[in-house]
């Protein structure tokens, strides 16, 4: 469990970090909280000759809530999400989800940016960001650009981010509707067997907006437009929820692992999705 030799860099601003990434190409990787990357290096499954630690770049941390928009710096830790007062009002689903990530030790170190940027299908934040329709802010040698979370993930560990780009922040609209993040896992510290985020807005007994996204049920997070559509315009009665669950489960493609075979995961996913929707509706 000892990584191969590497050079350690600790730039003080984003420009220097990007310069290092450009210089070293695919030999370089940024280091955030290290709780995904360092285990991979220790197992020698990732060989990184140049580690570019982002922790000295102050601009990359912090949570801002302004004009109905939430912006979270990439280096904000998962723990910060849990203890931030304003965020619990502006997007309570984030806190609920963050509390279900790993354990406190991991959350003190693990960052939102690392969790979102990584492209690990087990990570909870990507599905959540798709659920919230978040925008990812990337900066590279050619300047900055924005990518929708719903367009960012291509396959396991394959994303729209270029090797020399850094994720600086994530932003999304304040969301105060009904919410729920349901996750089944084997124990504290485990990735999801099945997880689902649900956001439901109801006005006068009718659903006006709904967004459903799932974690660890395919090689990318899955946002199901059809599942949300099945709820919008209904009273979220049993028939509508059945339709939403059917649409969501049709979109997933889990694989067998130590958590269980595909049939089990498909079944549990259906249950978890239903529970997420029901709880979100009950809070809407």
């Amino acid at each position, binding site marked *: *469990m*000892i990584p*191969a*030799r590497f050079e350690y860099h600790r730039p003080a601003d984003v420009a220097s970090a990007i310069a290092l990434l450009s210089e070293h190409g695919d030999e370089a990787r940024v280091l955030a909280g290290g709780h995904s990357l360092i285990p991979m290096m220790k197992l*020698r499954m990732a060989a990184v000759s140049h580690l570019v630690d982002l922790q000295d770049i102050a601009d990359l941390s912090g949570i801002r809530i302004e004009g109905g928009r939430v912006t979270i710096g990439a280096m904000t830790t998962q723990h910060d999400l849990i203890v931030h007062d304003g965020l619990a009002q502006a997007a309570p689903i984030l806190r609920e989800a963050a509390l279900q990530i790993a*354990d406190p030790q991991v959350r003190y170190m693990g960052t939102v940016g690392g969790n979102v940027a990584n492209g690990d299908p087990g990570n909870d934040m990507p599905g959540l960001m798709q659920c919230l329709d978040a925008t990812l802010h990337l900066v590279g040698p050619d300047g900055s650009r924005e990518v929708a979370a719903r367009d960012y993930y291509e396959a396991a560990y394959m994303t729209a981010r270029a090797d020399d780009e850094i994720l600086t922040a994530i932003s999304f609209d304040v969301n105060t509707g009904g919410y729920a993040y349901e996750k*089944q896992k*084997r*124990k*504290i*510290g*485990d*990735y999801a*067997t099945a997880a689902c985020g649900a956001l439901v807005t109801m006005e006068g007994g009718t659903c006006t907006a709904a967004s459903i996204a799932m974690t660890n049920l395919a090689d990318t997070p899955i946002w199901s437009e059809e599942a949300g559509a099945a709820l919008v315009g209904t009273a979220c009665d049993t028939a509508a929820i059945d339709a939403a669950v059917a649409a969501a489960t049709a979109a997933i493609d889990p694989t067998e692992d*130590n*958590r*269980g*075979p595909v*049939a*089990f995961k498909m*079944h*549990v996913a259906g*249950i*978890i999705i239903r529970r997420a929707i029901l709880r979100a509706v009950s809070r809407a």
Partner: protein
Amino acid sequence: MTDQTPISREDRVEKLKGVGSQRKRVEDARFTQGKGNYVDDIKMPGMLFGDFVRSPYAHARVVSINTEAALKVPGVLAVLTAADLAPLGLHWMPTLAGDKQMVLADGKVLYQGQEVAFVVATDRYAAADGIEAVEVEYSELPVVVDPFKALLPDAPVLREDLEGKMVGAHGPRKHHNHIFTWEQGDKDATEAVLAGADVVAEEMVYYHRTHPCPLEPCGCVASMDKVNGKLTLYGTFQAPHAIRTVVSLISGIEEHNIRVISPDIGGGFGNKVGAYPGYVCSVVASIVTGKPVKWVEDRMDNLMTTAFARDYWMKGKIAATKEGKITGLWCHVTADHGGFDACADPTKFPAGFFNICTGSYDIPVAYLAVDGVYTNKAPGGVAYRCSFRVTEAAYFIERMVEILAIELGMDAAELRRINFIKADQFPYHSALGWEYDSGDYHTAWDKALAAVDYEGLRKEQAERVEAFKRGETRKLLGIGLTHFTEIVGAGPVKNCDILGLGMFDSCEIRIHPTGSAIARLGTISQGQGHATTFAQILASEIGLPADSITVEEGDTDTAPYGLGTYGSRSTPVAGAATAMAGRKIRAKAQMIAAYLLEVHDNDLEWDVDRFVVKGAPERFKTMKEIAFASYNQAIPGLEPGLEAVSYYDPPNMTYPFGAYICVMEIDVDTGVHEIRQFYALDDCGTRINPMIIEGQVHGGLTEALAIAMGQEIAYDEMGNCKTGTLMDFFVPTAWETPHYTTDHTTTPSPHHPIGAKGVGESPNVGGVPAFSNAVHDAFRAFGLRQSHMPHDHWRIWKIANGLGLHG
């Protein structure tokens, strides 16, 4: 000398903190402050670090090993292979089970993770780079992970070194992958009973492969002093003296030139009983380089290569009358030992004490056969927090009784009650050859059932089933019952030895002039709190406060010879030695007191911490006064000083027992369980420190929870270990751990000097069937008989799915 002892007898008893006191653990001050001294904390000048190149394949021929590139890695000093060890005869080593094991791959590998080469470097970073640079060419061979397939006629030959050898350490071998057959009991009589029985319940019960997974993995530091010829070996050894003897036997270094030291050990649970290639390679590397060499496993090494536990396929048949009186028990075990038979069992017991499998029941006739089998899995088969194979036995009988209850349509608590050995039947001779020392099962059982309101629970369960059938709930309620009987404290030298070393244990006591003492034992604590409890035993025996007694273990240069700590043997054996040595001290103290008080020995009586002249309570000498006198008085006919040593050979094992009840809610849709209540009644005989007992019970139950509900070492068809990290190998956190209610009855052991039986392992032994039975019981109303552990989410889901509960 003026004596400050408070007058009241109660005060004097309390001040001793002897047997029965809730004395706080003296070890915890250093552990809770991070000041423990574990093997990886040991640093010596010039120390090198060794680590292994391990096989990625489960079964392959090693075609070639090229170390050239590795030797060029900065910091790498040497790379040892079997070819280097062969001239010393050290490329293979004996196992504790009478087999032999490769130290480094000799032509082939038999399991994934097997040690192939040992890289010695200036630090562990360089060693890791060196490992990557060693080029090994393998040619893959067909893999066998299923012990039943391993015994097919055309199964690949795993142990080519044994080809043609049709007799092994434990008798005839039936097949090239067969290790031994071990038979107990009366086959013909048992089969006759089965043939004529009203009811026979038959089932295959699998106790899956798991791993003790101590917090601290295995490791050592070997230091060969070439000037004086002395080898010092620090290591995570549960049996330091036995390790010294083994090292001497296989290295040829004389035993007085070997000093083995077990420093603080971060949990053992059986994982640290055996001898591992890392120890041999470190010793050889230290001899070769003249420098101290450290080897410490990482978590994956530990889970994948050093001593697993269980992996028993237990086929059972249990016969009974219509009324539920058990008339006979038949069992056949297929035991998967992996690539080498490296079980840590007493020599004459290749399946340990599995013949305790008649459990708490008065079963007139029984038969048992165990077949040991080689497969392409890691070796081991150690007693994971249990006496040798006792956990497997307890699980087997506690499942068979539940299955018999189903067959008879009876309540499982009632079935147990009518079959328990009765209090007046002790000492009880079991059909499979043991003499149970003492017990009162009915009292314990009734107390347990009353404590949980058993009747009420059954009513609630029946209502739940109805509500489930009406579609009002998706949760079922399981009531997991267990009454276990252990056999611990190995053991009488006449039938228990390891490598020919009798399984006695020892204690040596020195009383200092000012009335404090040091006691040294042949055992070694791995978290059990020996320094606390052995001082308590002694305090009660010799009347000096436990706080004034140092307990020291683990250094073979200073401690008396003993067989170490595992199989709950410390209290039954070394604890007995401590009491007996204490009594020798007291006997001499009595003579000194008699001299000082100018009376005859027989005129004195012992009173807590002093000898008092019978009928003259004002005339006494305290132990503290006597201790001083032993150093400053010339007493005719007595040697100066106050010391004693005892080597204790127990006349019998001890038989702790207990009644555990687990109440579990099960979500049939997700397979998620929730433990609503867990009640654990333990009877470990005399209770030395109730707080330590409670801690042991909590810890053992949590391991049992892990094993029953998710923990396993699993392999795929290619022999790849799928559970090599703590992400997949389940170790519960505080979150998954339920609240436990502990309780007790006290039935002392009649043959142990203070009546104590040992408790450290009971909760693992009794806990696993309690959790597993709860899962099974939840589905009993829907027709479930047997479903193998671990009961993780998907396997519970699979039960529900198979019973048609998903619609």
